């Protein structure tokens, strides 16, 4: 890293603090209407309706989980029918070994559907959120540690096409942000 770049690291984004969940909610609506794309809000607790205020679309997670569930279901069907109808058909209790032996198979189909879709949901959330992640530029900002206690933050990232250090800073001050600070990436 050259000396010039070390003194002037690229900006990560602009952070602003808000007094309450209500002001954060209203600020989010204004940032959404201003047309920003790469930004986020941070609060100590989930705020009802925030996804609408932020203009977030529907998460694709539901469709991914559906595929996972379908995969689990198909696995169970094949796992049960291939051995017990074709490879090793055993007649137990005089029960059929063809398609109509389905009742005892249902619990396994059900369980595998649930299991694989739960796994898909769990890992899907990780992947969609780009987790696990060891560090984040926001953690360098000392005041941010209060976000799990009593502080409400809004961050607009520098990756946003409408981002500019001075204008975004002024915009956040206009919509009621306090302690507006430009954060720099640390690596």
């Amino acid at each position, binding site marked *: 890293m050259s000396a010039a770049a070390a003194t002037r690291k690229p900006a990560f984004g602009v952070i602003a603090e808000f007094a309450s*969940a*209500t002001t954060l*909610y*209203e600020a989010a*609506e204004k940032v959404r209407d201003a047309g920003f794309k790469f930004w986020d809000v941070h609060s100590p607790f989930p*705020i*009802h*309706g925030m996804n*609408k*205020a932020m203009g977030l679309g*529907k998460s694709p997670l*539901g469709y991914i989980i*559906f595929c996972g569930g379908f995969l689990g279901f198909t696995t169970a069907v094949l796992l049960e029918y291939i051995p017990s109808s074709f490879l090793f058909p055993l007649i137990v*209790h005089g029960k059929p070994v063809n398609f109509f032996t389905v*009742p*005892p198979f*249902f*619990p396994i189909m059900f369980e595998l559907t649930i299991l694989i879709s739960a796994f898909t949901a769990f890992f899907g959330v990780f992947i969609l959120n780009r987790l696990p992640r060891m560090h984040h530029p926001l953690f360098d900002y000392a005041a941010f540690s209060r976000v799990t206690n009593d502080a409400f933050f809004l961050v607009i990232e520098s990756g946003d096409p409408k981002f500019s250090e001075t204008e975004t800073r002024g915009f956040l001050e206009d919509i009621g942000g306090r302690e507006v600070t430009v954060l720099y990436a640390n690596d």
Partner: protein
Amino acid sequence: MSHSHLTVPKPEIFESRKINRVLSALLGIGAFSLLVTLIVGFAAPGGSDLRRQFAFSWLFAFLYFFTILIGCFFWIIVHHATDSGWGIVVRRQMENLASLLPWMLLFFLPLFFVRRDIWDWITAKDSPVLDPHLRDKIGYFELHFGSLVVPFFWIRAILYFAFFGFAALYFRRTSIRQDSDGDPKWSIQMRGFSFPGILLFAACTTFIAFDWFSSPDYRWASTMWGVYIFAGAAGAGMALIILVVIALKHAGYLRFVNEEHYHIMGKLLLTFSIFWGYIGFSQYMLIWYANIPEETEWFLRRNIESWNVLNTFLVIGRFFIPFFYLLFQYTKRNAKLLAAISFWILGMHILDTYVTIMPFVHPRGFELSILDLLSLLAIGCPLAFIFVRRLGGVSLFPSRDPRLLESLKLSN
């Protein structure tokens, strides 16, 4: 929070004068069907095919409406017990529907007079050699204390009507009282009563399932049966609540009910479709696997000849179709699509009741009878008439409930 401009709406009163013609049509059709059905049924000699057809058609129609109404009642007590805020705006409709339950006593009376054609333990208990199955269960129908015989079966029937009648009227009356004084103590009192209400509801529903649904064949027993009837009832009750709310909104009332409320009701409808399938299958699989004749007989009877077609269709129609249909957010939030599936589920509930009751009288496959339809009309039309009249008296939503605002600005 973005709805900080939201104000509490004024109470709305339903104007039933506008649909007087519908009301008189309901009354006319209802009275005609009631008269024809009862005359045909009671003119037929006891034990004849026609009398048995009437008895089971009436039982089928009675149980169809009765289970839907106890489903509506279930949603009131769950609403209070969980102290939930989302459904305040639709709660009055649950109360209006559940308050029809006392009237069901009137429609139960014909069943008492044709009891010998429905419940075969009544004739079997007098035979000189008692069936061993009945000998073990006779205390369930009649209690013997020396020479004193207590008709436990009929005492239970009175207890069901007493519980459902008083509880449904209590919740409606208290909710209406709150409309005038807005005192939060009524909410707290109703919550307090809802907890014992849930226990009594569970006990009554389970025993109703045994008494009225399955004891026409006293040999059969299944501990899942009460839950199965409950699962179908709660789903059908929610479907009817959805239809009433959407109809009222369509008629220009309850304008503040929006897709968020539909979404929650759709989710509950989906939940209870899954629950119905889960319980129905669990019961079926255990009996299929154990293969004990007195248990399998119930399902054998319902899976021979054309009954098999109806039962297979029921599994697809009551579980698979609503499941895949309601899985998507779009269908739950759209009033027209949600109303369509609610109609479908009420239709499937007819089929569910039909394939439970009718194989008793037509063991060789299903035979539609005009008495089935007339019985449905004879009970359904008067109930609809009473319901519409009941809508008119009071506000269409609990206008001074302390949590009304919370319900208005609902978001999922």
